[in-house]
């Protein structure tokens, strides 16, 4: 029995997926289909980032599968020259779960949006995370419904005026990172569509994680929610707000590193001026800590007003994956019991009728 079959933690997310020595380029991952997002859509940037990043994994292209649900971002698989399925609304994680369980030799990616993953597909998302199926979920969060032309989504800020909420939306939004952590996720990361470097780094770590990796990507929808994340991109503003994480490093940000994250009461974290608290008081980021409350506290550093937005890998811990464990049970059953169909059909108690 291999380590994979035993569902042992500590294996890379790509163990079992065949690799190739042939050099790959980003364009190898471009399909012949014309990309049809609106001009300026953040999805283009993410698509380019993924296509540029995948060659670095050195996997056989035919062993990569993109599965999506419904929504603008869910057209993603059509543009990838890999295997792919554009499925039904909210169900991509469930379909990918079946696929990943049936095939350990595939690198399975789910592309979904805030409506697809958190509204109609919320149930599948949380159960996929708790099962820790070996698949990578790219959650494109534009805080709006794009494909249906601009209704508020489960991540829209309260009071959002949209076509369906002329007097402002009433719902309190989800924080996808907090939700994932509450759902027992083993890997949670966040990146900005415009930050190629940061996004690529999170994708790299996600790919190498064995288990479900949820990556929230803040994505601009110039048509229905333009500028939703502009404050995180404007020079002068961005540095004050973005809190990048690096494992093993003190959490520090600001144009001149003048801010940092320190522990506060009841296991929470808060932002402080380094000048006030001193460097030694800064929290050293540990993505591997078992207790999810630390990562949760990071996800709650500010309300969802983007005043402090943490990016990078919040949490990355090892736990046996559902699909590895399911395969291990099949292997174990094969080793201990004979697969004899005839004797199964006969069972224990038979009787024989003889002809006259």
């Amino acid at each position, binding site marked *: 029995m291999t380590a994979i079959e035993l569902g042992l933690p500590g294996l890379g997310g790509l163990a079992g997926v065949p690799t190739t020595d042939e050099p790959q380029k980003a364009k190898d991952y471009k399909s012949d289909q014309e990309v049809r997002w609106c001009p300026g859509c953040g999805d283009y940037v993410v698509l380019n980032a993924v296509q540029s990043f995948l060659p670095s994994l050195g996997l056989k292209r035919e062993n990569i599968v993109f599965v999506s649900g419904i929504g603008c971002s869910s057209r993603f698989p059509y543009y990838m020259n890999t295997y*792919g399925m554009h499925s*039904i609304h909210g169900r991509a994680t469930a379909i990918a779960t079946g696929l990943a369980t049936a095939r350990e030799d595939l690198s399975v990616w789910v592309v979904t949006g805030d409506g697809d993953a958190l509204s109609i597909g919320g149930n599948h998302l949380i159960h996929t995370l708790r099962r820790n199926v070996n698949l990578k979920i790219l959650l494109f969060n534009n805080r709006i419904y794009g494909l249906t032309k601009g209704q508020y989504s489960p991540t829209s800020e309260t009071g959002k005026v949209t076509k369906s909420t002329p007097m402002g939306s009433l719902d309190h939004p989800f924080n996808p990172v907090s939700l994932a952590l509450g759902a027992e996720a083993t890997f949670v990361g966040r990146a900005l569509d415009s930050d190629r470097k940061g996004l690529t780094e999170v994708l790299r770590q996600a790919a190498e994680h064995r288990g479900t990796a949820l990556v929230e990507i803040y994505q601009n929808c110039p048509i229905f929610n333009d500028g939703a994340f502009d404050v995180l991109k404007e020079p002068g503003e961005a540095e004050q707000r973005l809190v990048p994480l690096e494992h093993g490093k003190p959490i520090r940000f600001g144009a001149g590193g003048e801010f940092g994250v320190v522990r506060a009461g009841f296991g929470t974290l808060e932002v402080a001026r380094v000048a006030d608290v001193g460097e030694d008081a800064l929290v050293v980021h540990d993505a591997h800590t078992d207790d999810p409350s630390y990562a949760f506290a990071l996800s709650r550093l500010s309300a969802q007003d983007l005043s402090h937005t943490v990016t990078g890998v919040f949490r990355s811990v090892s736990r046996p994956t559902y699909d590895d464990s399911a395969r291990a049970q099949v292997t174990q059953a094969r080793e201990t019991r004979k697969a004899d169909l005839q004797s199964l059909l006969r069972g224990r108690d*038979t009787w024989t*009728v003889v002809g006259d």
Partner: protein
Amino acid sequence: MSTGLDGDVAGSTRGAGITKLDRVVIRFAGDSGDGMQLTGDRFTSEAAAFGNDLSTMPNFPAEIRAPQGTIPGVSSFQVHFADYDILTPGDRPDVLVAMNPAALKANIADLPAGGTLIVNTDEFVKRNLTKVGYDANPLEDESLAAYQVHQVAMATITQGALAETGLGKKDAERCKNMFALGLLSWMYHRPTEGTEQFLREKFAKKPDIAEANVLAFRAGYYYGETTESFATTYQVAPAKLSPGTYRQITGNTALAYGIVAASQQSGLPVLLGTYPITPASDILHELSKHKQFGITTFQAEDEIAGICAALGASYGGALGVTSTSGPGVALKSEAIGLGVMTELPLLVIDVQRGGPSTGLPTKTEQADLLQAMFGRNGESPVPIVAPQSPADCFAAAVEATHIALKYRTPVMLLSDGAIANGSEPWLVPEVGDLADLGVEFATEPNAPDGSGEFWPYLRDPETLARAWAVPGTAGLQHRIGGLEKADGTGNISYDPNNHDRMTRIRQAKVDGIEVPDLLVDDPSGKARVLVLGWGSSYGPIGAACRRVRKQGHAIAQAHLRNLNPFPKNLGEVLRSYDKVVVPEMNLGQLALLLRGKYLVDVISHTKVAGLPFMAEELQDVLTGVVKGIDA
């Protein structure tokens, strides 16, 4: 000896204290906590081991433990066994075993006058009687005068027999169902070793409980032998079934085995994605025991995830299966549509139960036919296969899988509660005789334009099945999904003509599925009336036909196993009879389809009572139609 007929009064011959019968129907009835299902099951196994033909019908409440001693809490198990081939669990019991007043009250109306009634008197105390609305104890007045009543203090005697074991009173009392089984086993000359062995294995971890049950079982047996209250015992000889090796099997088990066999015969591993639901959960339980055959069972977070995981596995080249009941099919509809659009094999099992909504979870019905046929958005044809009896579920599962794999399509398999939990002898097939279900995956580019591309929607001209390339196949990378596909290339297409063409192709593919011609059974060759059924009503319809024929009338019987597409000769068959009667446990769903497709004004006979048809009621209906024609 008379030729037996299901539901007839049994033929008998009498000897020295032993009466020979050709068939008997026994119903064990008690509180849900009394272990009646186990008792009935064991008696059935004894009948099977003895070589009788048999058919069973469990009937239990939806609540796990309804309030004790109440009518809603009554659980029963009916077993019909005979020395010839029988078709149903029997309309009415010849023998009713009532473990408490509630069981008596709930079942006595079904016992014909002169029938045998065995009651556990210990439970007939004022409190229990009042609970079910008996003002006076029926055992003490004349209300049961029409029956042969045997009053046995089962709990007291069982406790006495176990006095030495040191078992607590309560535990000892709980063994009274085995006492009842022992008594009935003696009355009907049943073999006992199997039950004793079964009890020792079942309670292997609690040897004292095992021994107590064996002792109670023996106490019942000896009670019959030594007391004089039972003057006669009965023998039902082994049945002369077709030669071969038989076992007893329930519909759900046979279905699960069919899936294992289909997996072996196709060489594809199975992924069952499912969510627990009555009465389908036993398929999950059974399959989860057979992982050595390469079977993975995934208990999903909901019905939708169950089918989606199955479809995902199918996309990966496995055999995706999902099992559910009507409410679950409602939730799975969109994913079935995705299966239709992506043209992937998928087996969808619907073990029908009473509806709509939650309906009658533990009762049977055949009212999901139109749901299976049409219950999706758009033109979304899905083949439908329906087994006709518990043992037939095996072949039906293999056939449904065969269609799914050969034509790359979701297939609905419509079982129902009566078949799922009912059991009968099964002529165990030889594995060597099973069909080869092997599939060929695409391995090469296939584009007819010589571009060296792979076109996932290029079809086999015969079957119209599309090329199936699984991930991991080099050079055949492609994308599929729920959006309309361009014919051939499979690229997204919004072209009006293409959509029209693809809609017609999908329909033509299902319409063109090869299904065997409908066979008509008309021994006289003179019938002018045809009775046409589908699914689990096969037994009662067949039994009713035997009776009609025995009365000297000619009647033809045919049974549909393929409901989509229908057999090619169906129209011709329908038109060759003066009248066609279609009995269904719904409000006429098959009748609607037949009228719509063949313009034949069939006579729809319907019943939606949560219970199978009785042979007797169908006999009356059929006789009425036959006589109407003759007149």
